């Protein structure tokens, strides 16, 4: 097993829809996409963001773009104009996800 930081195998962009932040996670190379599919599960992402989001995590697959899309519900303190957060529109949840470390077989 070896440790891989998501930042080294993927890039990401995030945005908002109400109180939900979305994170699009994209493999830096096509051969990394199966690693993302296998290891970056909705449950793993929910664990990663424990304490930062109040709702569930949904995951969608875009194999054509070598990307996964995550919806982080209850991530934005009400979202939009209601939110008191610096990142009220979830713009940098993307890089917070890239902190995730995976244990993968060599």
């Amino acid at each position, binding site marked *: 097993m070896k440790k891989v930081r998501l930042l080294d195998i993927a*890039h*990401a*962009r*995030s*945005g*908002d*829809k*109400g*109180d939900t932040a*979305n994170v*699009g996670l*994209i493999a*830096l190379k096509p051969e990394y996409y199966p690693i993302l599919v296998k290891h970056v599960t909705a449950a793993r992402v929910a664990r*990663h*963001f*424990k*304490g*930062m989001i109040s709702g569930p995590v949904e995951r*969608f*697959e*875009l*194999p*054509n*773009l*070598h*990307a996964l*899309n995550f*919806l982080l519900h209850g991530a934005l*303190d*009400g*979202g*939009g*104009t*209601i939110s*008191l*957060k*610096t*990142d009220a529109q979830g713009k*940098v949840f*993307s*890089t*917070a996800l890239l*902190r995730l470390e995976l244990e993968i077989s060599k």
Partner: protein
Amino acid sequence: MKSQPATVRIAAGQGFWGDWLEAPYRQVTGGPVDYLMMDYLAEVTMSILQKQKSRDASLGYARDFIPLMERILPIVVERGIKITANAGGVNPRACAEAVAETARRLRLGGKLRIGVVMGDDLLGRLDGLLARGHELRNLDTGRPLSDVRDRVVSANAYLGAWPVVDALRGGADVVVTGRVTDTGLTLAPMIHAFGWQPDAWDLLAAGTVAGHTIECGAQSSGGNCLVDWERIPDLANVGYPIVDAAPDGTFEIFKHPGTGGRISVAGVTEQLVYEMGNPTEYITPDCIADFTTIRLQQKGKDRVRVSGVQGRPATDKLKVSVAYFYGYKAVGTLVYAWPDAYKKAQAADRILRQRLADLGLTFEAVLTEFVGADATHGPLARAATPLDELPEVQLRIGVRSPDKAAVERFTWEIAPLILNGPPSVTGFAGGRPKPEEIVAYWPALLDKRMVEPCVEVVEV
């Protein structure tokens, strides 16, 4: 009958209201394009514009659109470039009249037709709709709109590409709209140029994907792009994206030669997943686009080809964006310096919260962030970074309440901490924070048949 063009080039000029003022000028002068598309309306924008209109009936649109038109109208008239823009906000007719007046001043009379797309504004019809059983339930919470009816500030249905197509068919050179979807402003020129049919779902989906790709301006041409970001060239002169669309629904994204930025598969992919929900159903008034069918290919330097897009029939609903008065908020900040910057900011937060409690003030929410330590990445940052030696930390504390007096009283509790709290504090030059009105967003769906778009084309 006009012959069908081989391709149509649609240039993005604004990704939001307040985007780079130079971009539209550069798009119409930097090389040949057929259309300039400008997206002005975010969810909260409509409520801001509605407030302006309630104070002055001649306002309620993106006012900086007029000086921009003054600058570029002579160029677009000379080059035959058409414009689609949702700059009309809640008063598209007044916006169009202001454009017409500008055109006349520029002696463009007889050379320009202006199209106006209306019918999205539901504010005056809300009670009638509610009375007829259209509950406009909140898509997130399920609550009926009647819960907040007395606090509604604006209500607009999202119109799609077709009314914009009608304006173009009517000979409009500049189409000014109210709440037309961002993607519809790009799709409409393709429908118009290629004669796409209302049930050509794959083509409509392709045009919708093209719209999504360029609707945030430079976000698909090197701006806000994480991949290899330090080597993206010359962002000072970033070229905004242009769609080069073909009649078969394939298109290429490019930018004018000699501009900065980068158009790459990685950057376009980032934009495609931006604000994405379920990728198999990207729902617009015009169609449902399936983003899992998109194929991207780097065709050359700063040129990405998009193909394979599939779509499905549109739903029988339109999305409605309602803005309503929610309450008040205020955010105060102070900066603490080394040594123990983080600990001092934490101590100040504890003191402040105790004082708020002692005053008997209660809030719907009190949120503290330590900017420089954990504001954006929360506990993930605290676990990853040693916090003892931070050179400075900004204490940022916000409150929210329906009670304006409580929020107002909170704002008086920040500055005293400078002299009666933890040491080494600075960064208060902004003065006492001001309580802000919160106008919140209420997304809902409405039966399409309840909305009648209205299109006018007038000669200048």
